[in-house]
Every structure is written in C-alpha cells, then in structure tokens.
C-alpha cells in the first residue's frame, strides 16, 4: 500500500508515542534505581549503586530470589518435557479427537488465575500437601506446559513427515529417529519454550500468592512491599527483574520468529 509522506510521519510519531507509553515507566524505574535521592523524583541528585547493595544485603530478597530462580528452572524443565512429549505424541496420533485434545490442553491458558490459584489451594489442602515452592512448581506447570506444547508443536510441524519416514526406512528405530531427526530440528522451539516458561514462572504472582504458603517467591515478596509505596530498593529489584525477563524473552522471540 502506498502512503503519503504526511501519513508516514503521523504513523512514526504514533509509534514513538506508543513506545514511550509502553517502555517509559520501565525506563524511569531503571533510572531512579541509580538515583542518590531517597525519593524517586526529580531533580536528579547523583549516581549511586547503594540501592543495589541494600537489595543484595536484604535476606528476604535474597531468599525469595533464590526460590524464584529455582522454581523457574524446575517449571521450565518440566513444562518443556511435557510439551515436547505431548507435541511428539500429537504428531503421530491419528484420531478425530486430536483437535479436541489440543483445545483441552491449552484451555488452562484461558482460565482466570484467581480461580486456578484457589482451586489448587483447595486441592493441595485436601491431599495434605503442605504449601511451599513445590506446590507453586506443580501449579505453574499447569499453565506453562500448554504454552510449551503450542510453541514446540508449531516448530515440530515444520518438519516434513517424509524426513522421519526416510530415517525409518534407513533402519533408524523410533527413539533414534526422535533423537537424531526430530529433536535437533525442534531445538529452537524447545529453547524458546524453556526461556518463556522460565520467565513466566519467575514473574507469576497470583497463583504463587495462593499456593506458596510461607515460602515466598520474589513476586509475592514484591507485592507485600509495593503497596506501602515507592522505594529506591524496589526500583533496584524491578530493574533486576526486568533485565532478566527482557533478555530471556527477547531471545525466545527471535528464536520463534526465525523461520528457515
């Protein structure tokens, strides 16, 4: 479509305004995490790293950060494992129920998290499983596995069936075919799914709030302190969380968009 230069200019201005809206507050938080002043406001008083020192000397923060990192790794590994086996199973499953199965397995993504969190809280209580990071791990897999399934499935579908058949005809067994043909070709999808599910679990707050008990994850800890208002230490935590998440997600996005 051809556009007049005027329309193009308006478009670019709109894009830049939208970027300011989306990224502005985040950049402001990052900037103020380095501000000497205790109050996150202008004028700028000078550069400091003291809020980061404060953050890393706070035991609650370190403990919940440790919980969240461990949680993210476990959730990501489990989700990818379930997603990969599920996608591989779906690839070879010839049934009219395939579509329905797919729909049912991605349905957790549409269930409000408040309901899911409460349902899991009641369930764990009923089976006498004490609330801890373990229950958060189980809960997070419920909605990250469907996401991993869709991402890995999308990638796996780009592998032609003929390639698998060729491997079989050349004498490769079912496991050999999977490890030598399917797995390497699906790898970008697997890595993207792993990064994305880690990030989601690392940042998820609502379900974690319901089922973590006294084992606070980082978002649950952050929630307990942000309602009291702005503090430079939270700016520092926020900056750290952002840098971790944005990096992982950007890599995942690039991997997913790359179609060769």
């Amino acid at each position, binding site marked *: 479509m051809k556009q007049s230069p005027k329309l193009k200019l308006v478009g670019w201005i709109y894009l830049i305004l939208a970027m300011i809206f989306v990224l502005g507050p985040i950049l402001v938080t990052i900037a103020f995490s380095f501000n000497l002043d205790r109050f996150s406001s202008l004028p700028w008083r000078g550069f400091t790293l003291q809020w980061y020192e404060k953050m890393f000397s706070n035991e609650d923060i370190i403990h919940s950060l440790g919980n969240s990192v461990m949680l993210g790794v476990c959730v990501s590994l489990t989700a990818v494992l379930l997603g990969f086996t*599920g996608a591989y199973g779906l690839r070879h499953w010839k049934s009219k129920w395939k579509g329905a199965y797919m729909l049912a397995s991605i349905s957790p993504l549409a269930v409000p998290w408040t309901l899911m969190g409460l349902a899991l809280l009641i369930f764990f209580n009923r089976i006498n499983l004490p609330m801890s990071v373990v229950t958060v791990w189980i809960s997070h897999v419920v909605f990250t596995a469907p996401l991993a399934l869709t991402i890995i499935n999308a990638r796996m579908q780009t592998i032609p069936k003929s390639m698998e058949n060729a491997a*079989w005809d050349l004498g490769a067994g079912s496991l050999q075919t999977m490890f030598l043909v399917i797995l390497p070709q699906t790898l970008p999808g697997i890595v993207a799914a792993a990064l994305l599910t880690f990030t989601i679990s690392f940042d998820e707050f609502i379900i974690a709030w319901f089922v973590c008990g006294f084992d606070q994850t980082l978002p649950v800890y952050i929630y307990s302190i942000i*309602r009291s208002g702005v503090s430079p230490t939270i700016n520092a935590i926020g900056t750290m969380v952002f840098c971790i998440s944005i990096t992982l997600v950007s890599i995942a996005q690039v991997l997913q968009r790359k179609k060769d």
Partner: protein
Amino acid sequence: MSPLEPVRHRGASNRSAGWLLPLSGWMVIFYLIPLVFIIGTSFRTMVNYQLTSEFTMQNYLAIFAEPLYWKALRVSLLLAVKVVAITTLIAYPLAMVLVFIVPKRWRTFFLILIIAPFWTSYLIRAYSWFIVLGNNGILNLLLKSLGLIGQPVQILYTGTATTIGLVHYLLPIMTLTIYTTLENIDPKLLEAANDLGAGGLRSFFHVILPLSAGGLVNGMMFIYILAFADFVSPATLGGQTERVFPQLIVDAVQWNINWPLASALSIVMVAAIFLVLLVLSLFRNIGSRENGGSGK
C-alpha cells in the same frame, strides 16, 4: 496393505498414546481434579476452619442477596469493558503502523520492544507507574513545569490509575494479536482495492477491518478475561478505592479464610465472564451470517 509400506510406521503411530501420557496425567491430576474440587467446595460451608460435608446452596444465595457483590461485579464489568475499548483503540492503529508503515527489516525490532514487556513482571510494571503518576511523580512535575496545572493532580490511587495500569499490561498482547492478522492479509487485495479506486478509508472499512475482524475479536476476548480477573492493578495503583470482584475473592481467602465462599465467588466470576463472551459470540455469528459468512 502394500508390502512397500513398512509396518514400523504404524507401530510408531500406535505408541503415540504413551507419549501423550505425561501431559495428560499432569492435566487431569493438577487441573481437572482441582476444578472439580473448587466446584464441590463452593457447595460446602466452613465451621471452625473445617469444611463440612453436607451440600448447601448457602454461598450462592448469600452472594446473590448481597448488594456489595453486585456492585463489585458491575465495577469489574465496566472496568473490563473500558480497558478493552481503550486498549483496542490504541493497539489497532499501532499494529497498522507496524505492518503498513514500518519497513520490514525494522518490524521485528519494534515488535519485540513492544511485546517483550507483556512477558515480564506485571507487578513491577504496575509499580513503575507509581513513580510516574504520584503527586510528586514525573507526570505532575512535567505538567507543572509546563504551567498547565498549579496543584498536583491526584491520579495515583484512583480508578484512572487502575485503568492505565491495565491498559499498559494488555496493550502488548493486543497489538501482537492484531499485528499477526494484519500481516496475513494479502497485499494484492489492498492493491486491487486501490486499483478499483477505493481510497484509504474505503480500503480500511471494506478490506482491512473485515479481514482482521477474527483476530481482533479473539484478542478482545482474551484481554477481557485478563482485565476482569485482575486484582493487581486495582489493589496497588487503584489503592482499593473501588472494590473489584476478584479482590473480594482474595479477601475471602486472606481475611475470612472462607474457602467455600471464595470458591462460589470465583465460579460466579467465571460465569459472568463467559456469559458476556457467549452473548458477544452470538452477535458475532449473526453478524457474520448477514455478511454472507465472511465475518471471519
């Protein structure tokens, strides 16, 4: 069966059920059963922090008799509709700019910059607005230095702040959804419209909008669910000035330790959400039939 077709292919197909087992098992035990449990719990009561075993409708009756819950339901519904409307109005032109104006090699770059925040901590994103919107925040300082206001405007801890937080939360995913459908429109159709003398506006209303309607509606439904069920923005940025429905669920769990009531509340919430979606999808079906089934 021809002798050329190796039996192994069929064997692999039969074993597929085994590969589906881990995922299916996890979903049945930790997704379906908890959902059954929450429905069951909503028909119980709690005495001395213990669930009773007899069936009762009392929680639902209490919810329908209490004006506080009706009010919260209305507040949540209006908030969700407002957020969906504003987000869509911002996201649609944004997606159009990305598809039709930004050169191809720059698209992924801008797209990632806009979408990446969706996958990062929503809590921190809500928090970042504290610094911007506060009485001594950047926005008030900016408006004051421009001479537009004398006194700082109270935005933080109001419904406006809640709305801003939610729009900020949902804009990336809405933009991505619309972007994906717009990108799939065949440029030849737009050329054809252009060749047939359609101006920009006519191409938009007769080609672009109808062809992107499917993605648009899906995106709106998705962010409607998220906006309705959210309590983070109302509880932090909104300062709990207006009680939203999900907040009542949280209160019932946190302060009253009344799980049966909380269960009934969350089921009512989901029912309300999907009732609205159902009504909308009926309209959509009627609409698409009138267009000769081309609504999608």
